[in-house]
């Protein structure tokens, strides 16, 4: 399977979406899963009296981070180093991959255990490690499913949301050594993953993780998870390498108070996730004795320069916006061609890479602008506004540019505009007669208008303009 860079769409969104829409199994799985999680989220959010105030505060804290990024990074680094960590700075994906690969090689690691991490997916770390002869082992159940299937994740939080239990059992039977279960009960499948990974955990020398939050004040990292695979990776191996996007910073430890209430309710629809680990540097006798923190830029400081677009960097990767998006629910994560799918992906991927990369310029159009994503976002990212902003600033096809400048020329002058309307009415008159029964809409127009009518009906110009109607009914009287 050939893949592009992890955050560059190799296919235009409309083409990829059409391909994915043909998969009825996928649509069924996605519909069920997103509906379940939407309902769970709504229930637990309604329990919190000051939810809206909390969103406001969280957005303000993240904006503070973007304002003072340089200073907070320096403070984080000083605190982490004082607590025994080693801090590295990676400008881009290749740089980060080189740092991690070198650190793992220095420990003579043949494999590394991994906690699910969007940052390491974004940089394609697994591929880089494999190229260096090191086997990355994904230990999150969903990531393990995706890795065993040689597939790519389709959801930020539930990467295997596109598999149902029957498909997972078949996959385990084919690819998981020692698997012999005949039941496809989720508990049985999870139990098999436990057995399969336990030996690996106990033998692992190096673990790689991301972080949900990094605290500038104390140099602490925060990892939010459910299964305990994260705790295994954070406590058993002697060496831990954390790849952390620079926007993950929070200024103060106390800021966690809001964020740890917002994140689980928004993402899994639980009051709290089963396990959250917070650790600061190295603790003698407890957990890894070598901690490396790789602070990843990879386009982030560039995005932070855009006064409107930078709000995308507030994202805490909860994936609430995916679960409410009518486009995501039908097209699924793979249609976005990036490890960041859904509404947040549609504004994050094109900004991180620049809109000229691959077909990322098609992503800001992967939305109906309905605004459901903005309503659920725990850090109040105005996703529809940024989508429109990216459409305005993004590259456009030549035909569209010509059409728009012609239209602008016509509309600038009253006489030209009236003449154009009259011409359109006259031209459409015979069609109107033919389509009267359908309410005067056109189902199939010739090229290039067929691009519009392929997915929707086109209304014909009205028989009489408002202006003419007014003159006829009011001014002549």
């Amino acid at each position, binding site marked *: 399977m050939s893949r592009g860079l992890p955050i560059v769409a190799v296919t235009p969104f409309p083409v990829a979406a059409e391909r994915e829409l043909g998969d009825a199994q996928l649509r069924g799985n996605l519909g069920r899963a997103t509906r379940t999680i939407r309902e769970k989220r709504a229930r637990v959010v309604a329990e919190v009296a000051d939810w809206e105030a909390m969103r406001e505060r969280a957005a303000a804290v993240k904006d503070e981070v973007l304002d003072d990024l340089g200073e907070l990074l320096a403070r984080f680094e000083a605190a982490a180093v004082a607590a025994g960590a080693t801090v590295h700075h990676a400008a881009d994906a290749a740089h980060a991959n080189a740092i991690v690969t070198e650190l793992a090689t220095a420990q003579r690691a043949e494999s590394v255990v991994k906690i699910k991490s969007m940052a390491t997916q974004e940089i394609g770390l697994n591929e880089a490690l494999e190229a260096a002869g090191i086997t990355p082992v994904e230990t999150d159940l969903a990531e393990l499913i995706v890795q065993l299937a040689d597939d790519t994740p389709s959801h930020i939080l539930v990467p295997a949301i596109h598999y149902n239990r029957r498909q997972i059992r078949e996959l385990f039977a084919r690819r998981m050594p020692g698997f012999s279960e005949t039941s496809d009960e989720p508990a049985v499948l999870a139990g098999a993953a*436990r057995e399969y990974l336990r030996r690996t955990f106990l033998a692992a020398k190096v673990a790689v993780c991301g972080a949900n939050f990094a605290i500038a004040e104390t140099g602490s990292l925060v990892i939010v998870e459910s299964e305990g695979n994260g705790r295994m990776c954070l406590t058993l191996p002697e060496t831990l390498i954390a790849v952390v996007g620079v926007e993950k910073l929070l200024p103060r430890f106390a800021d966690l108070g809001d964020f740890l209430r917002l994140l689980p309710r928004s993402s899994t629809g639980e009051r709290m996730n089963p396990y959250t680990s917070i650790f*600061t540097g190295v603790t003698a006798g407890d957990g890894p004795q070598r901690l490396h923190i790789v602070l990843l830029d990879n386009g982030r400081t560039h995005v932070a320069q855009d006064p409107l677009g930078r709000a995308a960097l507030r994202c805490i990767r909860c994936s609430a916006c995916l679960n409410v998006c009518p486009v995501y629910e039908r097209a699924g994560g793979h249609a976005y061609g990036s490890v960041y799918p859904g509404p947040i992906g549609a504004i994050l991927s094109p900004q991180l890479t620049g809109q000229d990369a691959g077909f990322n310029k098609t992503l800001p159009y992967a939305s109906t602008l309905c605004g459901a994503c903005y309503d659920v976002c725990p850090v109040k990212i105005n996703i529809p506004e940024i989508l429109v902003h990216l459409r305005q600033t993004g590259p456009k096809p030549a035909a569209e540019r010509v059409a728009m400048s012609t239209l602008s020329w016509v509309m600038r002058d009253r006489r030209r505009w009236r003449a154009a309307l009259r011409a359109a009415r006259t031209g459409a008159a015979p069609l109107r007669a033919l389509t009267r029964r359908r309410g005067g809409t056109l189902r199939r127009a010739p090229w290039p208008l067929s691009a519009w009518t392929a997915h929707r009906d086109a209304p014909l110009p009205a028989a009489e303009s408002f202006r003419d109607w007014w003159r006829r009914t009011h001014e002549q009287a």
Partner: protein
Amino acid sequence: MSLAELFAERAGDYRAGMHHCTEEDLPELLGRLLAGASKVVLPPGLPGAWTAALTAPVLRDGLAVGPGLLTAAELDQAGVSVLTACAVAIAETGTLVLDAGAGQGRRLLTLVPDHHVCVVHDAQIVADVPDMIAALPDPTRPLTMISGPSATSDIELNRVEGVHGPRRLDIVCVH
């Protein structure tokens, strides 16, 4: 509803085993909860009274800086349970917070064994996450927040208890 009642209700929602007793009855209750264990792991600093009625053989972990530390392989044996205290508990979310302080031990101890029994006193329960942060003696100690047993929702979003952490979590509320 008192904080202790809310905590018990919310922690119970995660399908943790909930138990209630007085300080006086605690040793006997712990003895009962741990009677089926092949071995009981004890972190340093646990009150002696808690272990008075244990019948299973015990494995005592050393201080983090010193000899006598249990290995992951020892903790991974079949039927091993671990008994700990906690630093703080959060009522709103039914969460236990361990900070590697006295009676809690290294993070490994509450992770590798398949059964965790944790004792919470009413006075340790705070309202929500911000109060928990304020109540921590030192936030830079290794912290683990535990809300119910290990779980996954990765298969069709069905919550399944017990993946890599302890599959059974018993919480003893001392009133």
